[in-house]
């Protein structure tokens, strides 16, 4: 039977499929195409490549593309080195403190990137903690607002993706394969390079792609630390908010270039990496070897340093929130509750906005993601395959780009959303569905088709069978995905900073603006409130309801 004929027999799920396509086409594909079309329209209304010619001849624009690629490449390398080393150590060796890495994904979830950027300015900035400390010695560390500062902080914000993906890849290696190779008389090092390495190569490339896409799309850290090396995502935002009326065509050109970069990454992933992923008998992962002596010390030191550096922003923010300040000058050692009092008073509205928007986006996102995941897994055809690719698209799109695309598309016409809360919730929704769909796909694969068939054959219609039989089985995974979607939406900055309007500011936007105007103590106080808002529900979900939320994204 053809895909279409099969769907005719399945009216309930066909409706769901049509609805899913409609949502993605209207709210994702259409805005992207609109943006793309706008990028060819010059000031005089003519159509052509003129704008792109300007982009590539104007030094400032060209430089922003280079900056984006340099930052992406550099941070990918550093993140892969740190994340990869950590993953290999933890997967294959046992040593003191190795258990600490379990906290890393959670730490990254709880500390939003805007807080990371703010905290590192406090530590390493011109008047930062470290320079104040070093003052008597006459030493000074170079400016944080430089390549090294940007790469350093971005790495701390990105290595976890590399770490988690590499760890998953390494744990999937069946130890029987290595043992088989060794039983055939090969020494360990040839087994590792000849057998293990080819097996995890797809994971390595996959992790690198994820980091690269994450870096070129990120906004908070480059916006705060990189005014001297603007990247595309930041420059597009600057053009967008420019009071002097930035060039609308150039915004859309930068957005289009970023989208093309992201889509190219997705294409590489789909065409080259996914195909090379080997199906391994899910056997047991190799047992870690206990290491001791100097090697163990080095390994333990690496883990401890990485954990401390990852946690530092939270600690610094918490301390600074209670430190007296006059203008930008902080007097560490003192104590005041003024910032916290001020933050608590003023953050009621933005916090409520964040919670409510994230809540709406999560409810819609979970329903949508479960439906899409079900279609992709249980109604396989070229149609649902296309749906699968489409739903992954937001992963590759910078938040700023998505924001600009949504604003430009929904400000006129039959559907006007610009300047409403709906468009902000929509941005949260779109940015989080790829991960939620992935989270639901795994457990659905584990629900055998026959379970559902049994239910239908016993007289329960297909859609009702899904709710009675399938949903309860994937319930725990869906709950975890919902919690993750909600808390990660709370720290979303890059799309909503384009979309928000008077009275609808969110916590990350408030923090960004306090940092931007140099009120770091107040920014810290806001950060503490936001981190608590993220951590408390996570902790409740994890330790009270036993929802497994530690798998990062």
């Amino acid at each position, binding site marked *: 039977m053809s895909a279409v004929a099969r769907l005719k027999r399945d009216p309930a799920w066909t409706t769901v499929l049509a609805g899913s396509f409609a949502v993605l086409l209207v709210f994702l594909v259409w805005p992207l195409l609109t943006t793309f079309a706008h990028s060819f329209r010059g000031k005089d209304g003519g159509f052509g490549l003129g704008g792109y010619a300007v982009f590539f001849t104007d030094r400032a624009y060209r430089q922003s593309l280079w900056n984006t690629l340099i930052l992406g490449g550099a941070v990918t390398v550093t993140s892969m080195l740190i994340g990869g080393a950590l993953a290999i150590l933890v997967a294959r060796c046992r040593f003191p403190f190795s258990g600490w890495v379990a906290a890393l994904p959670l730490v990254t979830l709880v500390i939003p990137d805007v807080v990371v950027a703010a905290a590192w300015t406090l530590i390493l900035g011109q008047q930062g903690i470290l320079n104040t400390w070093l003052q008597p010695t006459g030493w000074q560390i170079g400016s944080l607002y430089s390549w090294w500062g940007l790469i350093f902080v971005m790495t701390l914000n990105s290595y976890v993706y590399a770490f988690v993906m590499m760890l998953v890849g390494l744990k999937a290696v069946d130890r029987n394969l290595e043992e088989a190779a060794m039983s055939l008389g090969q020494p360990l090092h040839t087994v590792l390079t000849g057998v293990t390495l080819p097996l995890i190569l797809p994971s390595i490339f996959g992790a690198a792609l994820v980091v690269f896409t994450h870096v070129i799309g990120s906004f908070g850290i480059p916006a705060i630390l990189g005014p001297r090396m603007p990247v595309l995502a930041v420059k597009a935002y600057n053009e967008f908010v420019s009071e002097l009326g930035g060039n609308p065509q150039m915004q859309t050109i930068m957005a289009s270039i970023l989208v093309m970069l992201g889509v190219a990454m997705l294409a590489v992933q789909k065409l080259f990496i996914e195909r090379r992923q080997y199906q391994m008998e899910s056997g047991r992962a190799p047992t870690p070897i206990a290491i001791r002596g100097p090697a163990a010390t080095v390994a333990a030191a690496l883990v401890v340093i990485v954990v401390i550096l990852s946690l530092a922003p939270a600690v610094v923010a918490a301390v600074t929130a209670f430190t007296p300040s006059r203008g930008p000058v902080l007097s560490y050692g003192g104590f005041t509750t003024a910032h916290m009092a001020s933050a608590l008073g003023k953050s009621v509205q933005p916090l409520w906005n964040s919670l409510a928007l994230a809540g709406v986006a999560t409810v819609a996102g979970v329903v949508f993601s479960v439906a899409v995941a079900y279609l992709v897994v249980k109604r396989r055809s070229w149609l649902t395959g296309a749906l699968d690719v489409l739903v992954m698209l937001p992963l590759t799109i910078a938040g700023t780009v998505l924001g600009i695309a949504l604003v430009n598309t929904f400000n006129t016409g039959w559907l006007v959303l610009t300047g409403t809360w709906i468009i902000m919730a929509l941005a949260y929704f779109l940015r989080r569905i790829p991960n939620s769909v992935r989270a639901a796909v795994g457990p659905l694969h584990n629900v055998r088709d026959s379970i559902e*068939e*049994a239910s*239908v*054959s*016993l*007289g*329960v219609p*297909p859609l009702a069978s899904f709710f009675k039989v399938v949903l309860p089985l994937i319930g725990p995974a869906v709950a975890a995905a919902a919690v993750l979607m909600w808390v990660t939406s709370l720290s979303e900055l890059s799309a909503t900073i384009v979309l928000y309007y008077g009275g609808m500011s969110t916590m990350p936007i408030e923090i960004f603006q306090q940092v931007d105007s140099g009120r770091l103590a107040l920014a810290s106080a806001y950060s503490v409130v936001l981190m608590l808002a993220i951590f408390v529900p996570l902790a409740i979900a994890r330790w009270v309801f036993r929802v497994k939320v530690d798998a990062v994204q």
Partner: protein
Amino acid sequence: MRIRFERVTQRYDGQPLFTGLDLEIPSGKFFTLLGPSGCGKTTLLRMLAGFVVPDAGRVWFGDRDVTQLPVHKRGVGMVFQDYALFPDRSALDNVMYGLAPRGIAPAEARKRALAMLERVGLAAFADRSPATLSGGQRQRVAMARALVIEPELLLLDEPLAALDVKLRVELRAMVRELQLESGITTVFVTHDQEEALALSDIVAVMDRGRVVQTGAPSEIYARPVNGYAADFLGSANLIPAGEGRIKIVRREEIVIGPRTTSAGSGPRGDELEGTIEGVEFRGSITGYRVRTAHGLVHVDTWSVQHGRAHERGEEVMLRIPADARVVEGK
């Protein structure tokens, strides 16, 4: 309820699987679809359940055309190869599951489900979750779940394949017993000829989308229409009989004896010279693999009846009954 496939045509992965297939299943019988994997037997079963709709042709339940009827409206009981028990429900809840959609009140449903569990010998396990039951027990729950809705048609998709030999023999007796008691028309899919012989009223031997032969097991065993049917039901020897014809000889029909080495006397018409390549002692029966001029011939003998067992490498003479059935081609 009499079941009928009428000129059913179905493509699978772009290849034609059935072309104008006709098949009738008489009411109240235990009907087995027998064939190797890929022959289409499971697709036919899934057509009866409604999971597969034929590209062309009709499926009849009695005089009702059910070709387009959705699965949940067919009222068919089905037992799956992997049991397909709902893992988050107890055995009792599994059995009760199909009664609610039929508008049966919970108290009554509970009573019927318990009675059915009693019939399959699992009354004591009603509150257990499927994960804590053995394979055989799970299969019984699946049977009870399919039977409690009192279907007019029961479909069994290799329900015993995942069990070990001893349990399989035990459970197939139970399956047959339940079918005879209830008189439900039952369609059973298997690739195991022994199961097909032991359980069925009627067997349909299938080969690549065609039904090769339909009949009572003893009839097909005695009068196979071709070599394929003979080999699939009862593992026959197919010995060339000249002019593209073959002789079908059952393993137990061949008499095996020592070669008389008197000079100049070659084998007579119904005798075949050979050398024993392998001996298999299977308890009551001893099997021999004998290399002959016509290839390998399998011979089964009662272990007790012949005094001396032949040995590997021994030269023997096989006597083939003169009235062995001869059919066209393979």
